């Protein structure tokens, strides 16, 4: 050992200015923390929703601005009002209410009257979130619950769509129904579904030239947003991939078993709220399982329920139903999909034996 007995030159004794009495902060370890915060996360998710919102405005003009804006304002308003009435600290600054409003707005029809936006926001913020204790405590996705409530309670306004100024609208001849509704009607009448599997149609669906709720028509815009979510490390891919994969496989099997019952897998992936739901709603932290395995189970459940409702149910679209139903299962999934702690049951347990020791 190279012992250094020589004393190195000492810096001249500078008086240590002590922090004043009682100003040192005492807290438990760790003493450093990530710069991430809740409102940062919410803001970034909203940023990722922007492409879809912009596309909605391009397609539907002021109506889109109106519905999305109203929902955001109403949601924030309800949150502020709730905090005021229950005399608790204002939580609107965590941006979660605005995000809920934005997602809700993107889930609605551009022609929805303002009072339904108000009611929907009330359901989302007050009934689905605040009565459960606010952010982080709600078992159900607020936007999905609001959409389900509106779908059930106000089916007509929710499914009335603007005239589509696109080439496809004329081609289809259906202006008041989404392709999903049209396809399910066509299937019920045993009509030919080839139209919905044509590459022309699918291209339109990908680019957003079809009818539907504000934010869910343009798959491309949603995928751009999803890429943002992933690159910002806001979501993990387990849930969306499980949903999309399940839908693909399920529809493929149904198609193989009973042709003519429903259009192909691509149709189901590109229409309706699947993309928006898979990337932005099912991945909601609060209401999805925390483990990766749980996420996969959750996603598979959503995929199956969506397909069942779409193919056999009386509602043409089942994404929000599926999300809310699977939300109810999350506590169970979390319970059963949790692998135990490190070293709990070592598969490759190593037990050295006496003879092995030199």
């Amino acid at each position, binding site marked *: 050992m190279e012992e250094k007995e020589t004393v190195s030159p000492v810096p001249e004794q500078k008086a240590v200015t002590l922090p004043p009495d*009682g100003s*040192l902060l*005492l*807290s438990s370890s760790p003493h450093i923390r990530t710069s991430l915060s809740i409102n940062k996360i919410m803001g970034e998710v909203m940023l990722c929703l922007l492409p879809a919102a912009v596309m909605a405005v391009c397609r539907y003009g002021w109506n889109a601005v109106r519905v999305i804006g109203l929902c955001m304002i109403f949601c924030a308003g309800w949150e502020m009002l709730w905090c005021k009435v229950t005399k608790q600290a204002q939580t609107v600054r965590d941006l979660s209410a605005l995000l809920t409003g934005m997602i809700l707005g993107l889930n609605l029809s551009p022609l929805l009257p303002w009072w339904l936006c108000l009611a929907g926001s009330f359901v989302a913020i007050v009934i689905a979130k605040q009565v459960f204790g606010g952010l982080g405590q709600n078992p159900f996705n607020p936007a999905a619950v609001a959409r389900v409530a509106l779908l059930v309670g106000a089916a007509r306004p929710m499914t009335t769509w603007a005239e589509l100024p696109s080439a496809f609208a004329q081609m289809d001849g259906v202006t008041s129904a989404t392709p999903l509704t049209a396809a399910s009607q066509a299937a019920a009448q045993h009509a030919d579904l080839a139209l919905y599997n044509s590459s022309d149609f699918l291209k339109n669906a990908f680019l957003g030239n079809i009818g539907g709720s504000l934010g869910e028509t343009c798959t491309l815009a949603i995928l751009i947003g999803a890429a943002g979510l992933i690159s910002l490390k806001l979501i993990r891919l387990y849930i969306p991939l499980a949903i999309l994969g399940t839908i693909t496989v399920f529809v493929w099997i149904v198609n193989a078993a009973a042709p003519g019952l429903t259009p192909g897998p691509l149709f189901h992936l590109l229409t309706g709220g699947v993309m928006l739901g898979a990337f932005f709603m099912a991945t909601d932290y609060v209401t999805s399982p925390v483990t990766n395995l749980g996420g996969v189970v959750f996603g598979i459940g959503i995929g199956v329920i969506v397909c069942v409702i779409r193919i056999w149910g009386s509602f043409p679209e089942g994404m929000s139903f599926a999300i809310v139903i699977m939300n109810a299962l999350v506590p169970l999934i979390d319970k059963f999909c949790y692998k135990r702690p490190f070293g709990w049951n070592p598969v490759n347990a190593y037990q050295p034996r006496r003879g092995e020791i030199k």
Partner: protein
Amino acid sequence: MTNVILAALALAILGLVLGMLIGYTAKRFAVQTDPRIEAITELLPGANCGGCGYAGCADYARAMVEDGVSPAGCAVVSEENFQKISQALGQDSGKRERKVAVVYCSGDNGHARRVALYNGLNDCRAAAVLSGGGKGCRFGCIGLGSCARSCQFGAIELRNGLAVVHPEICKGCGKCTEVCPRKLIRLVSAETKAHVYCNSLDKGPAKRKNCTAGCLACRKCVKAAPDIFNAQGFLVRAREGAEISDELIASINCPTGALQSVADHLRSGKGKEGAA
């Protein structure tokens, strides 16, 4: 008409048959329970505070009946019900002394020195291991209110960083004494009218540095009333259950105000909060 009579008859027969069947099963598979357990459970307060050391009142009642545990373990039950329980158990009940909890500290934010800011769980036990949550005194009240939250009866008030027990509400269950990491809450006879509200075993100067309301062991009180007050090291304690008149306290005039009557202690905190 015949139909109705027949229906009634048929139902009556059905009822009879089923009733007999139930009667038979009830006899055949009967389970014996002691009716006293239920009766005593009814008499207990039902707060399930756990002060007796059992999992709730029903469990305690079971223990009383089956294991012969004394009913005196429940501090909360009213005198009347206590007598009834003793009767039901066929035991001779003695007179119980009412006890209340006392927080032996008067170091609220106006008196105790803060050496650091505390940032973390709002819980005394968690703060106790972190240099005691920032107050300089390592014996005094941490002031995060774990005891107040543990009290089923809402008898503890957190006042300006100091827990204060309201003796008229306190049932003496002793839950707070277990929760307090500093062990400065004790159950004492409700008859004691004044206490030395300090728990610090530090030497005088060290105590003085950390708190302006601590007992400095000047022994003024011990000299005035040696039969009531006795000094243990650097801390004076009033004898439990001693008669201490307000005049005596006034004549002693404790220099730091650590010796206070219970009523004054309750009042003074309020006044200071208003001032702060």
